[in-house]
């Protein structure tokens, strides 16, 4: 099983996210994450999908997505030629014993404390999913209260996906 990042430009129209999500469900694709947000042109959104599977799964996902009427561009984002980021907000227990360690880890990972209260410390970090995963594991023994991550966004270097 390989991991693929696929980006799609979709028209900002009624039910388009449902169409995309519904497609994954009924075709049985194995999706790790799906993010969606407006682009430089407010009439379009960009959906980034990370898929687990083989090359055939990737090709099927791309061609099935292209069939959807409100989907304008779909492209496999080559890992070597792109920048990939995810954001995490993670809340850890604030105790006398772990306080300084959280701060040290935050420093090392170039993360940032965004909330500090007597019970919890909330940290934000961006990075590749692998770095995020490592960050979670290093904080886990200190007592994670809650975490949320955005899922991956990715962009190719140089050209735009619709200039292919």
């Amino acid at each position, binding site marked *: 099983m390989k991991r693929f990042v696929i980006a799609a430009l979709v028209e900002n129209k*009624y*039910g388009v996210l*449902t*169409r995309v999500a*519904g497609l994954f469900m*009924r075709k049985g694709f194995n999706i790790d994450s799906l993010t969606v947000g407006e682009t430089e042109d407010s009439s379009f959104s960009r959906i980034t999908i990370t898929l687990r599977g083989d090359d*055939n799964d990737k*090709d*099927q996902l791309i*061609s*099935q997505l*292209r*069939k*959807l*009427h409100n989907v304008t561009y779909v492209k496999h984002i080559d890992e070597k030629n792109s920048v990939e980021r995810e954001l995490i907000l993670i809340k850890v227990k604030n105790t006398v014993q772990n306080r300084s360690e959280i701060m040290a880890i935050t420093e090392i990972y170039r993360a940032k404390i965004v909330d500090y209260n007597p019970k919890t410390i909330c940290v934000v970090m961006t990075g590749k999913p692998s770095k995020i995963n490592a960050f979670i594991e290093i904080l886990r023994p200190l007592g994670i209260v809650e975490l949320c991550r955005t899922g991956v966004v990715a962009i190719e270097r140089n050209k735009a996906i619709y200039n292919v």
Partner: protein
Amino acid sequence: MAKHKMPGSRIVIETLIEQGVTDVFGYPGGQVLNIYDELYKASDRINHYLAAHEQGAAHAADGYARATGKVGVVIATSGPGATNLVTGIATAMLDSIPMVAITGNVPTSLIGKDSFQEINITGVTLPITKHNYFVSNVKDLADTIREAFQIAKSGRPGPVLIDIPKDVQIAEYDFECEGVIEPYPQKKADDKEIDAAVDLINKAQKPYIYIGGGVITAGLSKKIKELAEKIDGYIGCTLMGLSAIENSYERFLGMQGMHGQYESSMANKEADLVIGIGVRFSDRATGNVKKYSKNAKVIQLDTDLSEINKNIKADVGIVGKISCALSKIIEKCDKQKHAEWKKTIDDLRAESKKISKKVNVVKSDKIGPKQVFDVINKIKDNDTVVATDVGQHQMWAAQFTSFEKPRTFVSSGGLGTMGYGLGAAIGAAVGSKKRAILVTGDGSFGMNLNELATAVTYNIPVVIVIINNGVLGMVRQWQTLFYGKRYSNTVLGRKTDFVKLADAFGLKGERVTTVQEFEKAFGNAYKANAPYIIDTVIDMDEFVLPMLPPGGSIEDIITSKEEATK
């Protein structure tokens, strides 16, 4: 025509007329009252056929589309009206049939409040439509309908649903008549792929051309024959590909797969090159994909990119406008002669004759399935549509009907919808402006026989041949073969008298048990310019053979019930 301000409901009808629609099927209700009001006013320009049930209306629109190649149109009200369309829309989706379904919905102010007869039909039909719309503003209405037609008929066709809330039907907006919208242009196939295909074709000694419903959609019958002649190949088809090539054509081997012709399935197995055109290599046609064509190269041509490599891996995949790609391939490939291949095919045909003799022995004094179709073939015109329901009778129709023109076979292939046939036959008869034949079973017919009322009301000449064995034959056949003859809920034991039923609905009906009786009845029915039921009683133990068991391949062919159940 200048711009006119008019209510949304009239925009709906004017846009349908603008798009060349002459016939629609449907059923009125609270949230489409305004649209029906406009239909009433425009009844001199557009015909509406009132069905007995929205499902029947949807199947009629589908049958109309299959018989004519035009987009079928169905109208239903919100809530139950809309959900009753679901099976009809799904049937069209699985067989890539162009259809536009228009539903009313509650006013936008009541949407999301579980109002009376409110259902989110765009949500319900999302996975079974090519696309669907909820029109929230009358400004978008005409263009949405135009785009719906465009999507329905472009590339690989399919059903499109438009949900229109009542306030949008009432609101007024400018309408200006435009021309019939053209399908989206299809992209040209890649020349590199075409050259790769030509290379494989030139190297092949045993080419087999395997065609599906896409060939009928794209009107490729003539080109397929040209290709077969140039490369000295033979043609087999899927259920959906039936009628694309006339049965009498010497290079045509018939349908392959689970209940296909022996020579067609075998030729596919023996071939060193399979050229799949407008097919999706469905499990019913290919059997076990691991064993499928493992010694052959595969070239796949389709207008839908996602079909390439979906079910089987193709050595060469050609996507785009298939008619152009085929012309190029025919032009570029060498003229070939494969004497050995011809001999193989001749041998297979001889073997198939033996099998068919063994399979089609009439075992009782009742008429046998093959005899039914011998009579139908003798009497019917070449351009008469034969529609079916789903089950044993459908497979017999596929095996034994002689098709001479494309679009004369109307059958639910992908979804396998029992209850499809009567509505579809009505639609086909309306579309072709000719009588249609419906071959059905007593099980399938029982599902939607209420549409008899429609056939009678509009005097639509449908010759209904019920192949009546008193059982759910196909399921029972599987129970015989794979479930130890435990006939769970397949012996109907009903007391339905189809002749009296015909009388009650106001059409003629008769019951026959022998070939002579059937021939006489069918002759009369075919001449009558009215619907007609022939209740044709056959033995309950008739089997559809040959059969490749599910997940099996041609090596596992079953040619005798006795041997298979020993």
